[in-house]
């Protein structure tokens, strides 16, 4: 249902960042890798009408805070016209690049069905695994460890 994004967490202060880095930006401590959900809220955004070399304008860029966990990432989007700070968005990853899409109810439903297909059994499995995953998140201080629930989900995705 949701994209998994690689990040890293500081075992000392709990800071979570994405993409993962070796050393915590707050102090010289090695971080551990974690998996984060591609779901968050818009912190700020802009549309560049003068893009740098290698990009075509208009270039839509947003900074998104992943929920839960609090890591922030930059991503591209189709447009920023209807965007607002605080708006919930889903993150998709293609070729290692993050894209945001607004996540209202209809978006969520269509994303869900697009990804999972219509089979009721598969839906029940997906919901179960999502619940498991969210529970593991809250137990682990806002980050998702590479759990069996995640692996189950990946298998589902591959089967499709």
């Amino acid at each position, binding site marked *: 249902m949701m994209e998994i994004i690689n990040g890293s967490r500081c075992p000392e202060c709990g800071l979570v960042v994405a993409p993962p880095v070796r050393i915590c*930006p707050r102090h010289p401590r090695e971080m551990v890798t974690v998996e984060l959900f591609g779901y968050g809220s818009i*912190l700020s955004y802009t*549309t560049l*009408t*003068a893009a740098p*070399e290698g990009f075509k304008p208009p270039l839509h*860029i947003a900074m998104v805070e992943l929920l839960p966990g609090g890591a922030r*990432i930059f991503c591209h989007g189709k447009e920023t016209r209807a965007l607002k700070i605080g708006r919930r968005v889903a993150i998709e990853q293609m070729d290692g*690049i993050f894209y945001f899409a607004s996540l209202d109810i209809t978006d969520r439903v269509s994303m869900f069905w697009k990804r999972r297909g219509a089979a009721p059994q598969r839906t029940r499995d997906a919901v179960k695994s999502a619940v498991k995953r969210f529970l593991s998140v809250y137990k682990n201080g806002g980050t998702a460890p590479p759990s069996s629930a995640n692996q189950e989900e990946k298998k589902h995705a591959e089967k499709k």
Partner: protein
Amino acid sequence: MRDVWIAAAAMTRFGRREESLENLMADAALEALRDADRQPDALVVTSMAPEEFVGEGNFASHIGTYLGLSRVPSLRVETATSSGAAALYAGFALIASGFHTNVLVAGGEKMTHASTPRVSEIISRVIDPHERSYGATMPALAAMVARAALAKGLFSESDMARVAVKNHANGARNPYAHFQKPVTMEEVMSSRVIADPLRLQHCCPISDGAAAILLTADPTGTKLAGMGQGSDYLAVRYRSSLTGFRATQDAAKAAFRMAGFGPERVQVAEIHDAFAPFEILALEDIGLFPNGKATKAVQNGELMLEGRLPVNPSGGLKARGHALAATGLAQAVEIVWQLTGRAWGRQVKAKVGLAHSIGGMATNNWVTLIEQVA
């Protein structure tokens, strides 16, 4: 720690210049040496990206030799767009420590010969790699800061335009400025959008130029009273707040602590307005205005030449121009000229001045305090 004094301050006109980087820096440096009438025993050189812009390396020796100072020990200092202030700090430390007595600090940048996308790409290398890989340029990050501040109601788009209008009005009176003509509110607010909500007239230009300051241990009356540096994560996304810069706050605290006085004594300020909203945010980060009051000051005209606290009498980065490594020094030059009555056409009454310089997207910032004591 020894007191450090300013013996001379000089700069070239900023703008689109035909001269080479070496000649721009030589113009400023030779004028400073003539004014000070003394020879340096150390040279601090700065240019942010001479390798990329003009293809020169080993830059301290290159400029040392070009200036006829090849036997004077030289070093190059670089902290992105605040390199000029960083070089001043290095010179300050060389004298305060007792290592040297007269230090020439010279900075310059030459970039108008390159295309705007090329300049933009080179400057963008000061940004975190993940953020840059999404096409984030300095205007893009500044736009995100401005957007967050607008959403919080810290100021309006009109207030951003007011800053640009004020600084252009000052630049129109400064023969050293890149832009020497005023702009109207309408012109600013209808100029083309660069990075929504920032428009062309909210952004500083790409300028060539150079500046030089001769520092000395001998009292001259113009004292480098204090300097402070502040830093922050290279990545903007790691920061807890988008609408204030920790690097400016820390730099200001350190500078005031060293000088032994507070922001209430400052009577004129040069602020790093690479983007108009940054001027408003900096005034509060430095402590020149309490939180929420800087916008009022912009609206009331308190920051104009005849106002309570003239800010950017030179025209700021917006109108005087932004020649990267020359800028931090040019700000100090303007403050020295204001304190010593040489800011013809735009002179204010002041004995204590402040210069504020931002490196990168506020990753390496400086606050400099200069005091006229005689």
